[in-house]
């Protein structure tokens, strides 16, 4: 707990650097990654991430120092070469793109590992720390490194800000963008370069192996909360920043730990929470909505049954007990009890001792269900040529679904008919 306080007081300037650095890196990667995700190039991002490793090693071998400027340049070059490689292979051979991506990814990474091990055995003193690029080390972000990485991150943010409109349009509808005369190829090229840059700087915090996660996962998580692209970018950057912050913290309390995996676990947790709990698009919500639909269907079926019983007696406000309802339509007695209770609470039914009676609202709703049922049966027979004895099941579903607008449309289309295909009267209010 003490360390938590110490960390978040930001008293130590080193901590400040590390925090600012990792938040900046992860957030800017997440922002660029949002477009990578929307352009459906998530796995290409993974390929680039692995392919920068030989570039870093090359930068080190050629310059002999760990100066980030050289390493970034090297990484940028091999990142680009890997992309060109993927494109060349898919274009000039019959190999499909997923194979090409996997091939380039693993071979480049293999070369990188080979170079890395050669460097390590070479005994160059300043090589220590190069392997931080494998799994990331946020705590290593100090001094000059921070300035270089920070500058690149800011460049990224500015570029995305300026080209926001174009990137969004391209992600949504490439053909249209071409048609209105946007330089699609150039914009694509810029986005790809930005992706490479995002990877190059993100690896300091996350490492090459798991870099893809910081590109894709924040965007995937954000997608569940919004349909607006600008909100999505904002959310992704917040998610990214939060995971970066936790990475920095972990790096602080447990210096031996690689930060990358922790950052990825944090961001993945956010993503899984989003998948399950996000309103509207989340999985749990969909399950709940299914349950609500089930309920509505059950409720309306009871109201419908009471209405139909009323039709027989030409009186809709007769007291009924459970047995009468079940005789007309099969419900399990316990379920029926719950439904009746619910309908009573909602004011569609009144209860007296062991009997229930429709209220005015209940009658109107039951009538509407019956009306739509019969209208739909008629529609199926007249417009879809379906035999009258085959239309009941479908109408049983549609009766609970139709919106008032569609109901009006249906009535108009059928010209306000009086009876359904089975000669039952269609009730209008």
């Amino acid at each position, binding site marked *: 707990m003490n360390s938590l306080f110490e960390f978040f007081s930001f008293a130590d300037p080193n901590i400040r650097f590390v925090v600012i650095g990792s938040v900046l890196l992860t957030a800017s990667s997440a922002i660029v990654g949002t477009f990578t995700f929307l352009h459906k190039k998530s796995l290409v991002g993974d390929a680039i991430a692995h392919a920068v490793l030989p570039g870093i090693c090359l930068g080190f071998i050629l310059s002999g120092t760990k100066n980030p400027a050289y390493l970034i340049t090297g990484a940028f070059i091999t990142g680009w070469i890997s992309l060109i490689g993927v494109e060349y292979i898919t274009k000039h051979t019959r190999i499909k793109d997923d194979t090409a991506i996997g091939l380039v990814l693993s071979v480049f990474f293999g070369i990188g590992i080979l170079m890395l091990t050669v460097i390590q055995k070479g005994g160059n003193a300043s090589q220590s720390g190069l392997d931080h690029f494998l*799994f990331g080390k946020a705590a290593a972000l100090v001094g000059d490194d921070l300035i270089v990485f920070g500058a690149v991150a800011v460049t990224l943010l500015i570029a995305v800000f300026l080209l926001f409109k174009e990137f969004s349009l391209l992600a949504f509808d490439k053909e249209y963008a071409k048609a209105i005369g946007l330089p699609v190829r150039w914009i694509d090229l810029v986005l790809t370069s930005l992706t490479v840059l995002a990877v190059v700087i993100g690896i300091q915090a996350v490492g090459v192996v798991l870099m893809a996660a910081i590109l894709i996962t924040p965007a995937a998580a954000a997608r569940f909360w919004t349909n607006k692209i600008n909100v999505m970018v904002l959310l992704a950057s917040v998610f990214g920043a939060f995971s970066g912050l936790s990475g920095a913290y972990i790096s602080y309390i447990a210096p031996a730990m690689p930060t990358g995996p922790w950052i990825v676990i944090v961001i993945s947790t956010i993503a*899984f929470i989003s998948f399950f709990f996000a309103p509207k698009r989340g999985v749990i919500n969909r399950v709940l909505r299914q349950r609500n639909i089930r309920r509505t269907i059950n409720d309306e079926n009871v109201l419908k049954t009471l209405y139909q019983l009323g039709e027989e007696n030409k009186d809709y406000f007769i007291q009924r007990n459970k047995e009468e309802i079940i005789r007309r339509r099969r419900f399990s007695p316990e379920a029926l009890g719950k439904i009746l209770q619910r309908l009573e609470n909602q004011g569609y039914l009144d209860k007296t001792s062991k009997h229930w009676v429709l209220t005015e609202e209940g009658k109107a709703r039951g009538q509407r269900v019956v009306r739509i049922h019969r209208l739909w049966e008629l529609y199926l027979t007249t417009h879809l040529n379906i035999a009258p004895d085959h239309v009941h099941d479908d109408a049983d579903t549609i009766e609970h679904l139709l919106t008032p607008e569609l109901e009006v449309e249906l009535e108009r289309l059928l010209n306000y008919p009086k009876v359904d295909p089975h000669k039952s009267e269609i009730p209008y209010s």
Partner: protein
Amino acid sequence: MNNNDLSIIFTASLVASSCALLGCFLILRKMAMVGDAISHAVLPGIVIAFLISGSRDSMTMLIGAGLIGVLTTFLIEFLHKKAKLQTDASIGVTFTWLFAIGVVLISLFAGKVDLDQDCVLYGEIAYVPLDTLIVGGQSIGPRALYIMGIILTIIILFIWIGYKELFLTTFDPAYASAIGISTTLWHYLLMGAVSATTVASFESVGAILVVALLIAPAATAYLITDNLKWMLVIACIAGIVASITGYFFAVWLDGSIAGAIAAMAGAIFVLAMIFSPTHGILMKKISAQPES
């Protein structure tokens, strides 16, 4: 060349052949990246099995991690179908998450698990000769050699028995289901085989080389032949050649053997891409000339 060299090369060749055989079906099914995902995702399974059983060579490890591999494909499909996430993203999210868990587990239990982060990435094939199998007090050779031998035998049997079904469900899944062959069953059998191979190969060559050996030799063979049976054979040969040349390359440079094998597998692919008599770029250029 001494005994150690031989046993390393031999182990690498066994890994390469197992991966190459399965890789052929993976790339033909356009599932190369799923193979990539599985090979990363089995890591937590390996670590957990390690913590439970306390040793490496238990069957539990193979089975447990194999199940996690199959679970990965489930999860990818779940995210795609139920959470409506696009396929590439669901692959990316799933495997990075599982791999991260694996690495963290290794760091947390560093004392108890005989694995480290580097080993996870590029294996310890150089130590293969040191870890020998001892039967009745007598050393009978490297343990990894035996394990990979068994795996390769199982895979060859699997392909031998299910050749027709694998062939058909890969080429035309709709027709396969129409005539009553379960595409789902063969899909999961194949994924199970990939997982088991990945786990068995993991400690010798690490996650990334497994991917390289799954994809590169198969892709090489795909550019050379138009016959599936030959494709399987050529992929194995390409994998073995990569293992041998890669080993000497690594010795010469004094670097990671796994990395060198991956690099050689890539180099062989590039050669095939340029010089293949059937689908090579050079060949296409030459045959295109007279027309223009």
